[in-house]
């Protein structure tokens, strides 16, 4: 029987990814490091600000997991939650530079910047990007987008910066969430309520079939944990460094007659696969 990963909260997700009995949370709920900005706007805070950072081991090697809690404020990135992710990656980088590699895993479940902390969320996301790029030179940075929130806004760039990106069919990955596109460009551009269309555009299966994610995995704790371990053996260059490949692909697109999501799967078929 399958053991759903999606149904787990962030803390249990982090525990499930780390080797058994190695989970140790840093700056957990008892440390009460909450958003300083939400109370000023009458919004309820959470004692971990919606991000769980845990140290432990992956395949016996030192690791750190940062898992975003999609159930709190849509997994949005505020000053504290963003600093927890950036800070964890910066410490992993420090250890790598000292010759003590740490395996970093990001469990991304987020709508992007928390609008109530706007510019400090955006600043934290830029720092997360910077840390991933620096850390990736020492050790693969592994991203997981499981669902159901998906991964949007500036954090979709963080997902794309990962050395290896693991998604489920239930995941969605995009820069602009469907609601935002509908608002900005009109319902004729995209009907955000049309689930089939949304998943066809940015669902995990489509992202994997068009080479925008590395691994498509069942919603199963054991399967995801196994793929995370496998991802640390990767030697392929990160996708966001493959500029010529994607420039060539994009040059072949006529924006006046864009391909259907299905046709794109053929046009951008995964390299080395039929």
């Amino acid at each position: 029987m399958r053991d759903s990963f999606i149904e787990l909260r962030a803390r249990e997700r982090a525990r499930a990814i780390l080797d058994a009995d190695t989970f140790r949370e840093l700056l957990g709920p008892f440390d009460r490091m909450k958003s300083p900005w939400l109370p000023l706007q009458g919004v309820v805070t959470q004692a971990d600000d919606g991000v769980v950072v845990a140290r432990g081991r992956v395949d016996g090697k030192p690791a750190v997991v940062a898992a975003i809690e999609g159930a709190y404020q849509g997994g949005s990135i505020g000053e504290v939650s963003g600093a927890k992710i950036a800070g964890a990656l910066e410490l992993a980088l420090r250890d790598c530079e000292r010759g003590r590699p740490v395996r970093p895993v990001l469990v991304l479940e987020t709508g992007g910047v928390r609008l109530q902390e706007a510019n400090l969320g955006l600043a934290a996301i830029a720092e997360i990007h910077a840390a991933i790029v620096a850390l990736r030179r020492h050790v693969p940075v592994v991203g997981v987008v499981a669902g159901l929130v998906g991964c949007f806004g500036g954090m979709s760039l963080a997902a794309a910066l990962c050395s290896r990106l693991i998604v489920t069919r239930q995941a969605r990955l995009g820069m602009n969430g469907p609601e935002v596109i509908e608002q900005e460009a009109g319902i004729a551009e995209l009907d955000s309520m049309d689930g089939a269309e949304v998943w066809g555009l940015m669902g995990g299966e489509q992202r994997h079939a068009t080479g925008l994610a590395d691994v498509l995995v069942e919603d199963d704790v054991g399967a995801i944990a196994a793929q995370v371990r496998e991802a640390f053996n990767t030697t392929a260059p990160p996708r966001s460094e493959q500029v010529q490949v994607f420039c060539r692909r994009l040059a072949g697109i006529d924006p006046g007659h864009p391909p259907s999501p299905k046709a794109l799967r053929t046009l951008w078929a995964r390299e080395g696969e039929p």
Partner: protein
Amino acid sequence: MSAQPNPAPRGLAARGLRWLQALTGQDGLLPSAPRTVRIADAPLGEELARFIAVVPDGENRFPRARCGEVGLDEAWTLAQQVRGTMSEDQNQRPRALIALVDVTSQAYGRREELLGIHLAGAAAADAYASARLAGHPVIALLVGKAMSGGFLTHGYQANRILALDSPEVLVHAMSKESAARVTRRPVEALEDLGERIVPMAYDVRSFNRLGLVHRLIRGVNADAPGPADVERVRGELTAAVATARGAPRDLSSRLESDAARATRAASIEVRRRLAQAWDAV
């Protein structure tokens, strides 16, 4: 509710090009690239620097990137150009990269999502970050809007952020109009909020209070810079390049100013406590 392509961007987001012309004397058009990404080399102090701007183009092949948005072609071209600079400079002193920032946002659209604008944006941010780590001083000069995904892809990976002190220099995660729709609040309510809550504000003086700005350049005509304005800005850029060359290549300086210590106290405290607990048994 209009699905029409955006109108031609008359007068919109024109500051990027104006400042590129003012600082380099060139229009920066590339031989075979979108007209929206402009690149020019020009002297800066004792050295040659590379200036990069994203500008509007009413005839852009992607209709949702005609008004100064960073779209697919823009982001991939930035990535290509910045990485090109890195390989050209492999055996010489890495040139300074000056990102002139006037970007209204990332491009919003169905085509953009289908074709992976999140990866395009990541590739641009990656290239700037990689250039910084390779020793290129990367300086962002905010001359107009620095909005959301547009800023993340073009400018936010800089060693140092400089900004003109002008009412049209705006920094935020979402345009006022969109934020009002999403939060179901009138624009005026958002403006009031911005006055009470610094990170919610759009204006560059508030942004400066977050400690993220290395230098706020006051008293310069941002729309129609005269020779003295241009010289001032060039001097500030030269100084920022020198500072960046002598400093760590990461973004740690963003947490070191007095303003950051006051307003981003939580960002600093989180890092301090994480470090404390990192190796604890």
